[in-house]
């Protein structure tokens, strides 16, 4: 196709949207809503994952050693734990140190160590960190099965709950996305079918003067592409503005929630949404062009 023809068909694509304003607006809005939902789900899941990784204590497992175990045996146990798969670091905290940590947690005024003296009731503790929050439950189970370990404590299911929620949201989001994408494709293809109908005289003339099939089809495909793209653009704009506003207000009001403030992540998300929107548009227009456009 000649360069000037590229200009003609692109101009006609824009003209199609303009002529068919109401349907175009409906299709653009549907694409925008569906992709906005997609973006929300994606941001939520990304934030949950980010939270899980960032809440460091969630990676931590504390194993309490049996009171009657000799010190050397406890230390050996700590070494053994260090060799387990999925452990990133391990630290042996003897009970003398443990009481000081406890003291710190209560504040400086208490003199716990002095009060209990030789009768320190705390057990020795082995504190380890997992490489990955997913591994925490399995690792805890493995450690608790070791000879000489009394009990094991970790995030008490918080990690699992968070991950489960994220997985559930992801799945629900995916199903929602599929349904709404189908609706968007259907609406785009209906919109283009209407344009094909309203331009039937032009199509007849083009065919008779000898326009190639692709020359006739291109404006409709471009129309679909643009509808998808505009919808996606709208979704991205709302997501960017909305997310930044939300992140700011969360940071000031609920600073304990570690919200992601990562521009590259947003840019990647924006790019993917734009591509997805354009893809929806092309699929929608292909369906109409090859069904209703007799060339």
């Amino acid at each position, binding site marked *: 196709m000649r360069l000037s023809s590229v200009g*003609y068909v692109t101009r006609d694509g824009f003209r199609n949207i303009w002529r068919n304003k109401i349907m175009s607006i409906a299709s653009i809005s549907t694409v925008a809503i569906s992709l906005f939902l997609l973006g929300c789900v994606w941001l939520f899941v990304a934030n949950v994952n980010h939270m899980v990784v960032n809440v460091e204590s969630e990676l931590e497992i504390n194993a309490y050693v049996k009171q009657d175990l000799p010190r050397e045996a406890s230390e050996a146990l700590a070494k053994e734990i260090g060799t387990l798969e999925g452990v990133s670091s391990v630290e042996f905290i003897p009970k003398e140190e443990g009481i000081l940590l406890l003291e710190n947690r209560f504040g400086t005024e208490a003199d716990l160590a002095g009060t209990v003296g030789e009768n320190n009731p705390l057990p020795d503790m082995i504190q380890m960190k997992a490489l990955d929050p997913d591994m925490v439950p399995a690792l805890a189970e493995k450690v608790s099965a070791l000879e000489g370990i009394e009990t094991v404590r970790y995030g008490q299911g918080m990690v699992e709950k968070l991950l489960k929620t994220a997985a559930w949201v992801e799945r629900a989001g995916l199903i929602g996305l599929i349904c709404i994408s189908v609706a968007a494709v259907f609406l785009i293809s209906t919109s283009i079918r209407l344009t094909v109908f309203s331009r039937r005289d032009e199509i007849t003339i*083009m065919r008779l003067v000898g326009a190639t099939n692709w020359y006739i089809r291109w404006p409709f495909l471009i129309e679909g592409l643009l509808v998808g793209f505009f919808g996606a653009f709208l979704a991205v704009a709302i997501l960017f503005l909305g997310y930044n506003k939300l992140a700011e207000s969360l940071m000031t009001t609920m600073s304990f929630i570690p919200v992601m403030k990562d521009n590259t992540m947003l840019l990647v998300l924006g790019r993917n949404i734009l591509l997805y929107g354009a893809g929806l548009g092309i699929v929608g227009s292909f369906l109409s062009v090859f069904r209703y456009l007799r060339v």
Partner: protein
Amino acid sequence: MIQFFNVNKVYDAEVRVEALKDVNLQIENGEFIFLVGPSGAGKSTLTKLIIREEIASSGQVLADGKSLARMKQRDIPFYRRRIGFVFQDFRLLMTRTVYENVAFAAEAVEMSAAEVRQRVPMVLDMMGIGDKRNAYPHQLSGGQQQRLGIARAMVNNPTMIIADEPTGNLDPETSGEIMRIFNAINRRGTTVIIATHDKDMVNQMRKRVIALKEGRVIRDEKNGGYHHEA
């Protein structure tokens, strides 16, 4: 050159219609031909076979010796660029200006923007509507609208013009003007085929007349007239 050899065309819709029966014809380059006959005689079908809108049910239609039925789908648009088509109802794009109506056809065959700018005013001047380039079709008289229709057919420099009842919607005086335009086009070497009911016109022009009746060619004569049987 267009040749018809034993051409039959049957439309097999709900009712079976034999639109053309055993048609044999030869149309030389540069000829001026009137296709005459009552409605339903097969005039439109014959033009549709020439522009490869339809394919013969049996027999052969050849263009410059090549079978149109066997023409590849992707070659059809390029074949049609050699033919200009003029409609009875003009088929103008009402939301576009005179200039845009013609430019539209030129762009459709992927003429460069520079060529479009050069060709369009030229054919508009040739049809005598150069001063109307910014007007919309509804602002033109019937005769001017048909001139615009012819300008659109001519812009791609076709070797053949086919017109289906081009004066059907026009008064006799305007029809005469339109015929003079076709005559001028023909004198430049372009083949002209006109399907018409217009008895006076045909009798006045004394060109080759092909008369159809119930799908058959009942008369084919040079310098003919519109006889009563047709």
